[in-house]
């Protein structure tokens, strides 16, 4: 009887650990930096620069970014993001979250990041 209780307890713990691991893996990241892979759906700004842009990720979630001061988009000015609206070529955005809660794009590449 006692042996059965120990086995049951171990089993419950095992299930709890598995659930916790999976849950942590699929919940949205709460860290202050990260990466998003997706398509550029909106770019606001003009020829002088980009004010913000939006990326739609593979799960259908939209992420709004503001460019960092030194942001380059594949070696070009941030206004190159407009090309990705026209062409539909996906991008990876590496970002951090600033104190105002904005997602600040630090780097935009054309490749899928290992972090995404």
């Amino acid at each position, binding site marked *: 009887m006692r042996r059965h209780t120990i086995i049951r307890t171990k089993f419950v713990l095992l299930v709890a650990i*598995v659930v916790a691991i999976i849950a942590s893996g699929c919940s949205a990241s709460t860290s202050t930096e990260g990466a998003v892979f997706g*398509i550029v*759906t909106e770019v606001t700004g003009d*020829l002088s620069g980009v004010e913000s842009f939006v990326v739609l990720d593979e799960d*259908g979630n939209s992420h709004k970014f503001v460019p960092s001061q030194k942001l380059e988009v594949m070696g070009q000015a941030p206004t190159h993001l407009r090309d990705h609206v026209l062409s539909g070529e996906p991008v990876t955005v590496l970002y951090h979250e600033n104190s105002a809660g904005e997602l600040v794009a630090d780097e935009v590449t054309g490749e899928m990041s290992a972090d995404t």
Partner: protein
Amino acid sequence: MRRLLLVLAVLALFASACSSSSDTDPLVGIRASTDPAVGDDRLLFAVHEIGGTRRGGPDEVVTVIASPLDAPNVELEAEATYVWIVPGAIGLYLANVPFDRAGIWQIDFSISTDEPTEPFLVDIQAEPATVALGEPAPLVETPTVLTDPIEDLTTDSEPLTSLYEMSLDTALTNDRKTVVIFATPAYCTSAACGPMLEQTKTMASDYPDVDFLHVEVYGGFNEPGFEPDVAHLVPAVVAFGLPTEPWVFVMDEEGVVIGRFDGVLGDGEIEFLLAS
């Protein structure tokens, strides 16, 4: 064994919860028009799968229904045509929707494949950032081959000299129609500049009674240390209020804007204005 099955079931449940995409994900529309305003009837948009795959083509017919959010009973329906930016490679849908009021419009669309779609929004401005239809075009002097070598006038690797023989202000006051394209093939932020300029060059030879001009977006591009930044925008780009490039404007004999096109030219769009 039953416990193992239970664990597997829990795993499967969480795995399905993690992934939100499925075969039934709707197609999404992405607005590509950069300066939509009241009086325009040009809606450029792309169709995507949520996973990122660009959809659409001449064989996939798309119909749109546009409604102001504050007046959903108003429904403007139009069939969109597929327009190539880079022939055979990149394209967009173009629908002619006579937007008649400022505000947010919802664009519902259907596709001939009968796949589900998700509406997208377009913010129609009361006044465009660029020169509006019906307004006189700004009389701006632009450099020509009479004053500068053509290498300093264009980044086009195969320029058509006739596009640089007349200043814009002269063209706008000589009682002829004018077509001006603002594009910078070498420094374009998109792949659209080169193809749009090529279309314009092709048309130029077909309309000897119309003045066709090309204006580079940036000046001084042959100078050491040049950067395509706001400090190098040429006066005509600033005067026309361009938020993006490329753009084509068509002016009538009085120099009044009768057509404004961003990004891509549909079949016959400019020809229609020049024939009337």
